[in-house]
């Protein structure tokens, strides 16, 4: 997994629009995040553009579970929409605030309104954590 992550970093250079499209496309195909270490060359190409790490997604999921008071065995995938989990827009605001605090980032107003799934939140967090100068 280590070698895959380094190659993914080197590909962040291309224009953000393209990498965003690639990211969106690959988020459906790169099957869960770290548990299945698929090592075929086909998935390698897709994972290069995959933005969110497994642990980020896990942390986001934990926060979502806590905020929405979900039981431990509710099925929670990266594609789960907040509304499907029983959150209304105020809950979403609260979740985004909690994520901001946890990861020590600042989410823009426009970005915050577009977060609907766990994967999107994780991608945005990764983005912001990288852009932030290392403390």
């Amino acid at each position, binding site marked *: 997994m280590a070698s895959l992550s380094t190659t993914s970093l080197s590909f962040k250079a291309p224009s953000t629009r393209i990498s965003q499209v690639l990211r969106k496309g690959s988020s459906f195909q790169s099957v869960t995040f770290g548990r299945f270490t698929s090592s075929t060359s086909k998935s390698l190409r897709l994972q290069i553009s995959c933005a969110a790490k497994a642990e980020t997604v896990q942390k986001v999921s934990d926060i979502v579970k806590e905020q929405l008071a979900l039981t431990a065995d509710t099925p929670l995938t990266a594609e789960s929409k907040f509304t499907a989990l029983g959150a*209304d827009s*105020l809950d979403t*605001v609260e979740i985004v*605030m909690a994520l901001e*605090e946890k990861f020590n980032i600042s989410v823009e107003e426009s970005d915050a309104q577009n977060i609907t799934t766990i994967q999107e939140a994780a991608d945005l967090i990764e983005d912001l954590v990288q852009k932030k100068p290392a403390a």
Partner: protein
Amino acid sequence: MVSRSEVLSLCRAMLRAGRQYPHYNLREYTKRRTLDGFRMNKNLTDQSKVNEAYAEAKAQFVVLERSVKFHSLYPPKTKNIMEVKLQ
């Protein structure tokens, strides 16, 4: 006419402002109270009532910002017990 996104923006702004208090109790209270306040009125349908509630929240927001500035002048001298990590 107050839109949904304006209401959410105000909620977010208030939560952000409340985070700046150096005092644990004020931070927690602001977070709790703003969310409770917005949740209490979330099912309003009458637009005039919505506008009224929004205006009230806006006024409170102005007070909140002023209060944060003031309380930042007098930060607590010791760390609050609730902020100390359990060992």
